């Protein structure tokens, strides 16, 4: 049996999207290649643990979240939930037990809420679809409970409201309430605060942290913001072009990064109080290449200020550089 302490385990998870070639290619039976959105990821999420998945756009972080919530299909590797491979489980009724335990919080609350449903409908939907309640009384109780846990008080006042009648922060709370209502054990949160006003962000983060503290819920927090990841997460995994380049405890990754990409990411993040006292590394040039043309060797080498010959030829494995701290770089110890 693989690690039973963890709730979710990704083993060389891979998501390649085929690139649609032209008619010409198809007639000739020529393969056009694939978008290697996620290209072999190993990640373990423990019970009650908050893991942050940090990366830029195009890093595949959202795709990982979609695979875990069964919105996207992996093309390789395994996805173990409590030791059981969930890759082959398909169809809404077969997935029902899984969905009762794994839920998702979306980035854009306005888009993630059906404009024609009331708050009650929205929060009640998973409870009804996943057959978690027997009657209307139970349903109303669970909806109220979830809204209250997400910080919408008194819950009854929100039942009949439509999403456009709520503020941005309240909408995100409704999304959270919808995920909470089923009392999941793992929540995938895809940039849950990036669309919110700064003063509201802390409120939402507080709700998420409380959930973990009170219900021992695990959280996979997807973000592009390293300081935010440091704030909320126990562990941080840094993703570059479909592969994890570094993973370790939040403090280790923030204060002692061992991969040049993590260092660059940290240096690029503007900070109040200046960026003083940081390892000096020249600013990164260029942008993340397309996942359709992943560079050979270490995928970061064309942009890496420290790259040398070996980086161009061989892909570095994840090397243990500290306790629970892995870095995929030839320069890491």
């Amino acid at each position, binding site marked *: 049996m693989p690690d039973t302490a963890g709730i979710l385990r990704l083993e060389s998870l891979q998501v390649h999207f085929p690139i649609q070639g032209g008619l010409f290619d198809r007639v000739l039976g020529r393969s056009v290649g694939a978008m290697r959105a996620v290209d072999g990821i190993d990640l373990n999420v423990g019970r009650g643990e908050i893991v942050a998945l940090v990366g*830029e*756009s195009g890093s595949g972080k959202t795709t990982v979240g979609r695979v875990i919530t069964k919105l996207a299909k992996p093309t390789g590797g395994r996805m173990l939930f409590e030791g059981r491979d969930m890759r082959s489980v398909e169809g809404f009724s077969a997935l029902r037990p899984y969905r009762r335990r794994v839920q998702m919080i979306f980035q854009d609350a306005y888009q993630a809420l059906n404009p024609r449903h009331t708050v009650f409908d929205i929060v009640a939907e998973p409870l009804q679809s996943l057959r978690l309640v027997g009657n209307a009384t139970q349903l109303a109780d669970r909806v109220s409970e979830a809204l209250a846990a997400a910080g919408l008080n008194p819950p009854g006042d929100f039942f009949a409201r439509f999403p456009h009648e709520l*503020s*941005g*922060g*309240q909408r995100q709370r409704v999304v959270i309430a919808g995920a909470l209502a089923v009392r999941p054990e793992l929540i995938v949160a895809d940039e849950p605060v990036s669309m919110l*006003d*700064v*003063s*509201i*962000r*802390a*409120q939402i*983060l*507080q709700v998420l*942290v409380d959930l973990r503290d009170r219900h021992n819920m695990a959280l996979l927090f997807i973000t*592009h*913001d*390293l*300081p*935010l990841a*440091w*704030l909320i997460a126990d562990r941080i995994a840094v993703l570059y072009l479909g592969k994890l380049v570094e993973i370790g405890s939040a403090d280790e990754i*923030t*204060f002692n990064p061992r991969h040049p990409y993590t260092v*660059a*990411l940290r*240096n*690029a*993040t*503007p*900070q*109040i*109080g*200046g*960026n003083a*006292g940081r390892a000096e590394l020249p*600013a*990164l040039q260029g*942008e*993340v290449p397309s996942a359709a043309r992943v560079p050979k060797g270490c995928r970061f080498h064309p942009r890496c200020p420290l790259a040398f010959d070996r980086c161009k030829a061989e892909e570095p494995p994840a090397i243990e550089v500290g306790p629970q701290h892995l870095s995929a770089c030839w320069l890491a110890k």
Partner: protein
Amino acid sequence: MTSSSQDKTPLLEIDRLSVDYGLKGVSLRAIDGVSFALRAGEAVGLVGESGSGKTTTAMAIAGLLSPNARVSGGQVRYRGNRLPIDDDAAMRPHRWSETSVVFQGAMNALNPVHRIIKQIAEPCMLKLGMSRGEATKRGSELLQLVGIPADRGSAYPHELSGGMRQRVMIAMALACRPSIIIGDEPTTALDVITQAQILNLLGDLRSQLSLALILITHDLSVVAKCCDRVMIMYAGRIVEDGTVAEIFAQPKHPYTRQLIESIPNPASGKKMIRPIPGDPPNLVNRPSGCAFHPRCPSVMGGCATEVPSLNKFGRGRVACHLHRSLTQEDKVAVHA
């Protein structure tokens, strides 16, 4: 009344500017008596949440207010001359050659069917009366200036990455040699590393071309990186104004302080989040008195009834009843 205590006229003066939006027959005040001055070459950050009026302020300065907006008071002066900001036609000669704007969504602001070099050359031909050849040459220079190889000029907008497109937007904004660039959330849609590249570019261009910069953003840390001065806006008014160093080290207004505290800062070493309770105010029912009073931890007697005026405090300005006793001018309260 503005902070133009310098003997020489500031480059841009915004004097008690108020803008209303007409919405279904109701008039809503988006900004209310905003005053500040911008010196040549200065970089000012205008920070606020949604509905704070930061974008309205910027659009008013650039004369790009939407048709349902009305300037209901105050004026904007450029080198001492009043700008006709509410007259689209009269504003035309000023736009792009004195102030120009870099918008947030570069993809929407670029025409998808024209090559970027043409789009940069166009304003040069129209505004500076250049011939096509001259304008194309200027376009290539501008592209190089913003760090795009000149041969990429023949690309179409969709062939460029987000960061590249934002560079094109900056090149276009520079085409008519303005002295003020207004960046309206220029890096919000970009990744961290690209954002750093664009902010560095703006900083370089500023010193190279001695540009003044007004940076509109919701992100205090962006301001920390590339501005000299920062103004915090809340519900249509400036609540605090000061140098970046001062504001971040010693914020005076409770809102500013809480805003800074709600940003995760590993440098501080402490993992603490202090949420600001409540929601940002909307224009329809703005709280009475100080608009921040329902969310303020230091709220006192007069806060709910009396609007605090923006008074000089130290080297900056602050609009808070906590700091009123220290000034002489507190009787000159602005009335809504």
